[in-house]
C-alpha cells in the first residue's frame, strides 16, 4: 500500500466528472453530440451526465469541431462511438482509420470506445452503412479476431453494439443475442446494448425482445443506447427503420425499464442524428431515462 503521502494520494484529473467516468455506473443519461449543439453546450452547460461523439466526425486533425469536442470534454465525460471501422468485413482492417481513432482516443480520454456488430465494406468499396453479419461460427471467429486486434492496438476494451437490421441470411444461424454474448466471451469486449435496435429487430424478425435481454449475461453490458425509429410500409407489411429521427417510443421505454431491471442502472445515451431537435428536447428524453434508471446528472458531480 502507499508508503508515502504522494503515492497514496488519488491522481485526480482536472477534468470534471472523472471519478464518475471511472465507475461509469453512476452517470445520469447523456446525449449524442451533434455539431449544431456545440456552442450551446459550451455556453449553457446543460445538466446532462455525458456526451457521446461519433468518432469519425472528429478525425480531422484540426479545426473548430475538434476544438469544441476537447472543450466539451473538459466539462463532461465523453465516449467515442465509431461507425466506420467496418469491424465485420473480411477486407483488411483500415490501419489509417485505426490510427486516427487511436489519436482521438489519446486526446479525448473517453469513457468508452464503441463500435458495431456489423460490416460495411467489401473489395475495398465502403457502403458507409451498418450491415448485418450471418450469425455463424465463421463470422464469430472472424469478428472475435477483429475485436481483439482493435483492442490490442487501442490498449483498451471495446464495447460492441447490436445493430438494427432489415434482413437475415438463410443459413443456420444462432440468435443475435447468442452471437453477441459469444463475441464478448471470445474477444473480451463488453456490450453496448441498443434497446431500440433490440426492439426494431424483434419487430422485423419476429422474436420476443425480452428473450434478447434475458439472453445477455448481466455482467457484460456497460452502456445502453436509446433512440427513435419510424415504421415504413413495404409489400403490405410494416418494416421498422432505425432512423434516430424521432422521440423514443413507449414500447422502447418499457423495454428500457426491463433492461434496467435486468442489468442495473447503466450509462444511457439518447441518440438523435436526423431532424435534430433543440437541446431542451434531448434533455427531456435524458431526464425520462434518468427517471426510469433512478440516476440523474447530479450523480456525476
Amino acid at each position, binding site marked *: 500500500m502507499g508508503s508515502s503521502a504522494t503515492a497514496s494520494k488519488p491522481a485526480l484529473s482536472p477534468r470534471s466528472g472523472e471519478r464518475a467516468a471511472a465507475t461509469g455506473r453512476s452517470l445520469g443519461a447523456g446525449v449524442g453530440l451533434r455539431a449544431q449543439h456545440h456552442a450551446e453546450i459550451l455556453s449553457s452547460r446543460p445538466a446532462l451526465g455525458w456526451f457521446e461523439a461519433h468518432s*469519425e466526425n472528429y*478525425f*480531422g*486533425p*484540426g*479545426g*473548430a*469541431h475538434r476544438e469544441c469536442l476537447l472543450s466539451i470534454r473538459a466539462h463532461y465525460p465523453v465516449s467515442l462511438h465509431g*461507425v*466506420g*471501422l*467496418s469491424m465485420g*468485413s*473480411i477486407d483488411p482492417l*483500415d490501419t489509417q*482509420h485505426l490510427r*486516427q481513432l487511436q489519436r482521438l482516443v489519446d486526446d479525448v480520454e473517453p469513457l468508452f470506445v464503441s463500435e458495431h456488430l456489423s*460490416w*460495411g*465494406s*467489401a*473489395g*475495398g*468499396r*465502403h*457502403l*458507409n*452503412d451498418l*450491415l448485418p*453479419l*450471418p450469425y*455463424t461460427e*465463421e*463470422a464469430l471467429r*472472424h469478428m472475435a479476431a477483429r475485436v481483439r486486434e482493435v483492442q490490442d492496438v487501442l490498449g483498451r476494451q471495446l464495447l460492441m453494439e447490436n445493430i438494427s437490421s*432489415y*434482413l*437475415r*441470411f*438463410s*443459413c443456420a444461424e444462432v440468435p443475435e443475442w447468442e452471437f453477441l454474448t459469444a463475441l464478448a466471451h471470445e474477444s473480451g469486449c463488453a456490450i453496448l446494448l441498443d434497446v431500440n435496435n433490440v426492439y426494431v429487430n424483434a419487430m422485423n*424478425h*419476429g422474436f420476443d425482445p425480452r428473450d434478447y435481454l434475458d439472453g445477455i449475461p448481466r455482467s457484460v453490458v456497460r452502456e445502453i443506447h436509446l433512440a427513435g425509429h419510424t415504421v415504413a410500409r*413495404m*409489400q403490405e*407489411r410494416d*418494416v421498422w*427503420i432505425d432512423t434516430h429521427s424521432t422521440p423514443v417510443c413507449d414500447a422502447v421505454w418499457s423495454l428500457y425499464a426491463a433492461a434496467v431491471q435486468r442489468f442495473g442502472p447503466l450509462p444511457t445515451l439518447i441518440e438523435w442524428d436526423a431532424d435534430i431537435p433543440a437541446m431542451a428536447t434531448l434533455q427531456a428524453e435524458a431526464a425520462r431515462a434518468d427517471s426510469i434508471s433512478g440516476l440523474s446528472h447530479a450523480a456525476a458531480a
Partner: protein
Amino acid sequence: MPPLRELQELVAAHLFGEEPDSVLAWIRADGIDPAARLGIYRNNLQQGFHKTLGLEYPVICRLVGTDYFRQLTRAFLEHHPSRSGDLHHVGAAFSSFLRRRFVDSEYLYLADVAALEWAYQECLLAEEVEPLDPGTLRNVPAQSHGMLRFSLRPSCRLVQSPFPVLRIWQVNQPESAAEEIIDLDSGPDFLLVFRRPGGAYFHRIDQDDFRLLAAFAAGSSLAEALDLIVASSPRFDLGAALRRCIEWAAFARIPSLHDTV
C-alpha cells in the same frame, strides 16, 4: 452458404447494381422479397452518399438544382465509390469527375467551383500549424536564402480558375440575396483559401504571388521558385511578394530556422 468474403462481395455488388440476383438465394424472405430488403440498404447507400456530397458541395447543388445534383451524385457513386469508413473523404474526386463530364461544355466552370468547395472543406479540418515567425529569417545567412524551402500551412489551399469562381461561390451562399448574372469571362481567379477562428476565408491574390506559393507547395526552393516566375515576369518583386505571404500567415514554421532562435 458461401464463405463470408464471397457473401459480402455479393451483397456489395448487388447494392452497387452489378449482380442483381446471385445473392438473393442467401437472404430469407419472411414475407418481404429479399430484393426489397436489400433495397433498404441500397437506398441508404445512395441517400447517404447524396447527403454527404450535398453538405460538401452546397454551391454546386444550388447551381444545378437538387434533382440534377441527385443524378450527378448517382453517377459519381458508380465511378467513385467510397474507399473509406470516414465519409469525409467521399467527395475528394468530385471536381475531377465534373471536369471529365463537362470538359467540352459551357458547364466546365462547375469543376472549378467544386475544387473551391473542396479546398474550403479541407481547410476547415486541416491540422493547426503555427505560422512562420518572420524574425527567424534574420538568422539565415544571405548566401543561404536561395536554398530556403517555405511550406504552406496545412490549413491553406490554393485554387486557380479561368472562371470567376469566388464571385460564383459568394452569390450562392445561403445568406446571399444577390440575384446577380455573373459573366463567366470575368475571371481568372487566383485564390488563397485559409482558416481563421470562425471558418475558412479567401484572399484573391495576383498571378505571380499564386505561382510563388504553388511552387513552394510543390517543394521548390526559393531560388527555383524565383527562376520559374522571372522567366515570364522579369519585374517580379520577390521581397514584396514574400512579405505579403507572411502577412497572410500562409507559411508554416521552418523547424530548422525556429530551432536556432
